[in-house]
């Protein structure tokens, strides 16, 4: 039997990872006894009385980590030491083998990876623009996740990139799929022949998942950042993206997604599209489509319709099937709405939609433009009215919880469900709530265990409503695929088991909510 001591000088581990390491060590079969504690004189004395003190550890200081263990042989000791170093390495970026430290600059990173072709930049907005410019100057495409980059900088970057034949996706671009690789907030989708250009992150996620879930696939999905289609930027990357997809030999159908672009930009898009042979589908949520009537663009009203149209074209079918499919589904939704609304009591009148995806908030508002009662939102579109107090719903209320006002000091609601969970309970408590509409977005970047977040709240809602002797339908769309780390089916099954009405798209979920409200009247 022998005792081995390992001293790590001046290395700080928070207690959580320290305990984890201690636990992992004690779980090794060949370890007979062990301890991992900071080197205070008292801990040293304690190790001594437990027979675990070695010469190395005698001189430990308060801020040094001591690890001691007992085992049977030198061979075992070596093996255990090796394991421990692996554990430590995982919990600290500071310990590194020689030469393996990360480079401190783009320029040195290029030396390590000379044929790099994309820079993902997510540093503070104040600096992100300069880093992006350096990347472009080095011939790299840029995905600019950072927000708070000035519009002047954005224009400068995009003009420069256009000259050089490079992409600038962003600023504030959360989603892209390049060469089959999902970047930042994106889903694991099939590869295929549909190319997507999107000025909307959630929009891109929704259409790419719907396409993938209907058996087709994505060639490329380029995000441009929401501001690209504004007048100032003039759609530089939106247009470049369409051109690139038009030239890409793996892309047969182009799907473009955006909140309403500036008229100037829309005109340029129409002009460009008229020169392109490939079929093009356009989803411009809440846009006045007069400008598009004469163009080649096949206009879809919803993200879902856009995805389905793209799928139809990619399979060389025409759009009638899409219309038919949507019509059939409308009938089903009407039937569900009928039976659900019959369970409501007289006070229950209003929709309460709580979204983590901003584009969904816009899309749903589109369905609720002409209601007999007022509709409110924190990010109103069209006839919808701005909420006076974002924390308090009024009549029909449609909320984007990813908006800045909600996310101060918190991660995005796709990651941190807590704000929305509280709001769900508040709405459930409101006697006038007739239906709660939600979205759940899966994929990389989003919360890896959404069920642990949402299921307890749904249970709570049920408890609450049964106490209040009422029924409250909860409708939810789940944006994701089977290949996502969270697995869409697992999420859907668990939600349905709790009585949630899970829809395949936000459009379907919104329509069901609308029918339900209308039946109630």
């Amino acid at each position: 039997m022998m005792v081995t001591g390992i001293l790590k000088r001046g290395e700080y581990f928070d207690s959580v990872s320290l305990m984890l390491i201690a636990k992992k060590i004690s779980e090794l079969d060949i370890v007979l006894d062990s301890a991992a504690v900071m080197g205070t004189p008292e801990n040293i004395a304690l190790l001594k009385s437990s027979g675990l003190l070695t010469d190395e550890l005698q001189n430990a200081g308060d801020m040094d980590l001591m690890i001691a263990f007992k085992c049977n042989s030198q061979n075992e000791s070596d093996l255990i030491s090796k394991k421990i170093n692996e554990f430590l390495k995982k919990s600290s970026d500071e310990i590194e083998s020689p030469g393996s430290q990360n480079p401190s600059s783009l320029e040195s990173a290029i030396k390590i990876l000379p044929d790099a072709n994309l820079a993902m930049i997510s540093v503070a907005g104040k600096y992100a623009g300069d880093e992006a410019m350096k990347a472009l100057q080095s011939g790299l495409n840029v995905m600019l996740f950072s927000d708070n980059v000035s519009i002047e900088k954005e224009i400068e970057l995009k003009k420069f990139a256009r000259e050089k034949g490079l992409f600038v996706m962003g600023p504030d671009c959360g989603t892209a799929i390049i060469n089959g690789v999902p970047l930042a907030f994106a889903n694991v989708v099939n590869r295929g022949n549909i190319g997507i250009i999107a000025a909307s992150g959630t929009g891109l996620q929704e259409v790419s998942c719907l396409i993938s879930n209907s058996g087709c696939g994505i060639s490329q999905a380029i995000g441009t950042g929401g501001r690209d289609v504004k007048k100032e930027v003039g759609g530089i990357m939106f247009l470049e993206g369409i051109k690139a997809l038009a030239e890409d030999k793996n892309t047969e159908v182009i799907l473009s997604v955006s909140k309403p672009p500036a008229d100037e930009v829309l005109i340029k898009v129409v002009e460009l599209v008229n020169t392109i042979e490939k079929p093009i589908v356009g989803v411009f949520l809440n846009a006045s489509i007069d400008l598009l009537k004469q163009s080649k663009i096949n206009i879809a009203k919803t993200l879902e319709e856009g995805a389905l149209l793209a799928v139809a074209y990619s399979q060389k079918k025409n759009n009638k099937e899409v219309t038919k499919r949507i019509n059939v589904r409308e009938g089903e939704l009407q039937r569900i709405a009928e039976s659900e609304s019959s369970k409501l009591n007289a006070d229950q009148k209003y929709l309460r939609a709580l979204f983590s995806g901003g584009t969904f908030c816009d899309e749903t508002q589109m369905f609720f433009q002409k209601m007999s009662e007022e509709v409110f939102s924190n990010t109103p579109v069209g006839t919808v009215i701005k909420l006076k107090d974002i924390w308090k719903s009024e009549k029909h209320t449609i909320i984007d919880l990813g908006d800045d006002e909600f996310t101060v000091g918190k991660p995005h609601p796709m990651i941190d469900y807590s704000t929305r969970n509280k709001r769900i309970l508040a709405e459930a408590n409101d006697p006038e709530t007739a239906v709660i509409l939600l979205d759940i977005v899966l994929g990389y970047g989003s919360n890896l265990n959404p069920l642990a977040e949402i299921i307890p709240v749904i249970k709570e809602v049920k408890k609450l409503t049964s106490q209040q002797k009422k029924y409250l339908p909860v409708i939810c769309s789940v944006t994701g695929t089977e290949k996502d780390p969270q697995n869409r089916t697992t999420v859907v099954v668990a939600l349905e088991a709790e009585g949630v009405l899970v829809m395949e798209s936000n459009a379907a979920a919104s329509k069901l909510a609308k029918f339900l409200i209308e039946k109630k009247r």
Partner: protein
Amino acid sequence: MNKLFESELKVINIGLKSFKETLDEQKVQSVQVDWKPPLISDSSSFDVIRKYSDKIEDANKEALKRILNSKPVLVGMGKAIDVIPGMKKNLLLHAGPPIVWDKMCGPMKGAVIGALIYEGFAKTYDEAEKVAASGKIEFSPCHEHATVGPMAGIVSPSMPVFILENEEFGNKAFCTMNEGLGKVLRYGAYDESVIGRLRWMENVLYPSLKKAIDKIGKIDLKNIIAQALHMGDEVHNRNRAATSLLYRILAPVIVEVNEKDAAISTLNFINSNDHFFLNLSMGVSKVSLDAARNIENSSIVVVMARNGTEFGIQLSGTGDQWFTGISPIPEALYFTGYTKDDANPDIGDSSITETNGLGGFAIAASPAIVQFVGGSTNDAVNYTLKMYEITTAENNIYKIPYLNFRGTPTGIDVIKVIEKNILPFIDTGVAHKNAGIGQIGAGVLEAPADPFKKAFIGFANQLKNN
């Protein structure tokens, strides 16, 4: 047209590490950049620098060509008053940027006192102090006289100095002989033993060494340093190999040209001082970097030096202007009985070695002294690797075996320092803050940010006005 769709995706991730983890999961090749915000956030200076980037690049190339092509050789010895440009009877040279008597730290004051006694300006401490404060004595930085001095760096008129010549460019540099460890003038000691040793060095060591060097003609110091790097020196905190190499060259000649007693004591003196070569490695650096001075538009650092109160730097493109900041106290391994509370702020011209791609910049070559830098060779290697981020070239002669004989990072570019927020890394000896106690530890420090910030802004302003 964009080639992205036809190529394998390879990503450089600057920012959130989770993105890199996702890429790893998908087996996409990627590199994470440990990004830090620049030291200066005001963009106007950056705009100027960007505008002139081509000119700066050309100028820096020229500066590096000169530094790397320099051929420093030891050509002789002489008395300071006779050989150092601008030296006068009432002038004392000191380490670091300019400083007045009142502002000098303990060890530097002590060394001034010692030098005044040695020169016969005073007999006692009190007398010397009065003389120093009287205004009769002038003070000037070594660096402004083609000279470098370790720690306090005091050079007085009668002191013998080595003469180094840059054979490629013709400029010269001067440095004193290293006194050894313990109670020595450069750490501010001034008692009789110190003065006695200085006199012995002037009367015995100097003539015997001078005769030997004159006989040899010239000694190629660059070659000695290149070899010493392969033998575990970085020639700032460790000079054992370089001293030995020099000793091998000198010993036979010293014996040949001197009386037996003088030869024995000279050889014993060199043999007992592992740091004998330090002053020469500083002189080599000085004479090489001086060749790269005054190149218009160059942002290369040609001096980093500390006077124990301030840390100052000079750039090639900004002439004789000093940019200074408060000198920090090194993170050190202290000799038994001493703590950081006893330490003087960083002092000495020896950081000229780092400026020349040696010392801390070459610490990966010196595993024997890694206990000064955190204990592991990894730390040492990582320090050297990091310095490549802020330098312009890899040295053509000074190479590091462990890094597959990669050249040491050479030619600090102040623009890179600011942009990447990485400060030069210096390994150094630590002086006691009180005069005369001597060295109390050895360790490392990051150069302070202020001098570099000021230099960057000063450089940008000069570009604007050109």
